[in-house]
């Protein structure tokens, strides 16, 4: 067993699509671009491709780093690389920035060819299903008829699940991690608070803030702060910050006194410096809308009857945003359909964020699953 390594320097690529994409919302994109990265090599019979789908603030930059920015390491670098659970000596791994994103794929900050100006708030609503449809077109371009696996955590897990329903014959395995078949009312409530923070920011300007030369930074900061609370667990927060005071004593001020206040403000400010507000709004709506059972009268088993893939479902004990019970729902629906499914419930203190962390048992489960996927060896 060799030491796990980085995939090294990576370079994003851009694929342009000129065939219009009809969207679930009824909108359409006449043309669009997807930015993506790949790691490892596609084998001769193209059977070793793995698609990694990203969550709310993720991107196509899954692993490795950039030559001109060695500190910009991919968001799932601990998972993808030579000797890592998604071993790039075996698999050809693809990361794609979703439509409506702000990392290079066509999104609200892109120029609308119809107007010559950035889309801003006029960018159409996109859904998980739309993302999957656009990813399938990228797969077509790359000559991948069938993925060895589609993998994702959180919102990425929803995409992996949706792949098995939209393209049952194009997915051999799906790893659905820290995900849910739909958001709860509480989850939608948190998203709505985040959206209202952005929508009511005076700098939002009905979404056309770019034309006004500003960004709704305050709204984005608040949105991220609320989000961060829900990604951690009570225990993790208590352990990491407790009631620690920055000045060692109470100073009776609205400055960041408690360490948790300081942490949230830092995270909010950092996020507002790089993430696009319209992308945040669109993406949280995509989360809220996802519900494959909706058109089956709420019957998830009926909705999942189309799936043909083998499944790995993973949840984390302290994840209250996408709790183990929602993964149980997926497992039970798959079981009802006599699908192959394994389910691991990882004991972790870190809440929803656990899916991004390097836990030995979690990664051991992923390694065990990915190792058993059969692909034709490289020649």
């Amino acid at each position: 067993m060799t030491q796990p390594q980085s995939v090294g320097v990576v370079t994003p690529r851009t694929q342009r699509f000129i065939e219009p994409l009809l969207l679930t919302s009824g909108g359409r994109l006449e043309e669009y671009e997807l930015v993506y990265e790949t790691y490892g090599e596609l084998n001769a019979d193209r059977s070793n491709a793995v698609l990694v789908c990203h969550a709310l603030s993720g991107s196509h930059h899954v692993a490795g780093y950039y030559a001109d920015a060695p500190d910009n390491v991919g968001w799932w670098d601990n998972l993808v690389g030579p000797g890592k659970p998604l071993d790039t000596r075996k698999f050809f791994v693809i990361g794609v920035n979703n439509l409506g994103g702000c990392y290079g794929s066509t999104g609200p900050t892109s120029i609308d060819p119809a107007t010559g100006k950035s889309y801003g708030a006029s960018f159409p609503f996109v859904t998980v299903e739309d993302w999957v449809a656009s990813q399938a077109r990228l797969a077509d371009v790359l000559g991948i008829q069938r993925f060895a696996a589609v993998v994702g955590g959180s919102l990425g897990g929803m995409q992996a699940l949706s792949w098995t329903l939209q393209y049952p014959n194009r997915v051999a395995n799906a790893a659905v991690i820290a995900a849910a078949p739909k958001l709860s009312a509480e989850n939608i409530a948190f998203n709505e608070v985040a959206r209202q923070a952005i929508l009511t920011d005076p700098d939002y300007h009905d979404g056309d803030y770019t034309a006004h030369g500003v960004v709704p930074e305050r709204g984005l900061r608040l949105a991220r702060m609320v989000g961060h609370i829900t990604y951690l667990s009570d225990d993790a927060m208590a352990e990491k910050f407790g009631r620690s005071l920055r000045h060692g004593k109470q100073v009776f001020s609205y400055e960041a006194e408690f360490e948790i206040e300081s942490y949230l403000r830092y995270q909010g400010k950092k996020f507002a410096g790089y993430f696009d507000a319209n992308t945040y709004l669109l993406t949280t709506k995509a989360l809220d809308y996802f519900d494959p059972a909706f058109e089956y009268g709420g019957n998830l088993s009926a909705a999942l009857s189309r799936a043909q893939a083998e499944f790995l479902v993973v949840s984390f004990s302290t994840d209250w945003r996408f709790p183990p019970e929602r993964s149980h729902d997926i497992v039970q629906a798959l079981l009802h359909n006599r699908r192959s499914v394994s389910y691991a419930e990882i004991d972790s203190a870190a809440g929803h964020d656990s899916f991004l962390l390097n836990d030995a048992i979690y990664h051991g489960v992923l390694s065990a699953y990915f190792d058993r996927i059969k692909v034709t060896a490289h020649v």
Partner: protein
Amino acid sequence: MSKLRYDFQAIAEWIGEGETVLDLGCGDGSLLRHLADTRGVLGYGVEADPENVKASIRNGINVLQIDLERGLAGFEDGFFDHVVMSFSLQAIHNTIGILTEMLRVGHEAVVSFPNFAYWRHRQAILNGHMPVSENLPHQWYNTPNVRFFTIADFEDLCAMNSIVIRDAIGFDEGVRVREEPNFLASVGLFRLGREH
């Protein structure tokens, strides 16, 4: 690790081609692997231990990480042809509850357990000590077992709960016992059902 256990063959004889099997406390998945290879079953294992979950996944079987003490609420009535629990019944508090659940989600249940009335165990007690053997490898202070019962006790429990014993085999350290199983068998293997 995945050495074929003597009870696997007996269990396999009770299971038909392509049937659906739930294995409670499936360990590293060896039994389901064996049943998939020899009977082409659709199998699911239930396991609480993370190392066993990993081993089962590596073994290529479906494994679900569920704590058996919480019951089988997620499984549908009569979904499985067989529900197997091999050497785990003695480690579960809610004995009647789990047997009832096994026969709710499965048409048949198969259980195996160490027989505390095995003659060597009786001898150990006569000599003043709790039995320690191949099937009871732990000391009294570190055993995961919480229920200590005999083949005769188990038969009584089945009768009291309207559980039909369709087959029973006793093993003495891996060899089938023909008579006096409650005395001569270290392990009891039962095939259970309900009255139709």
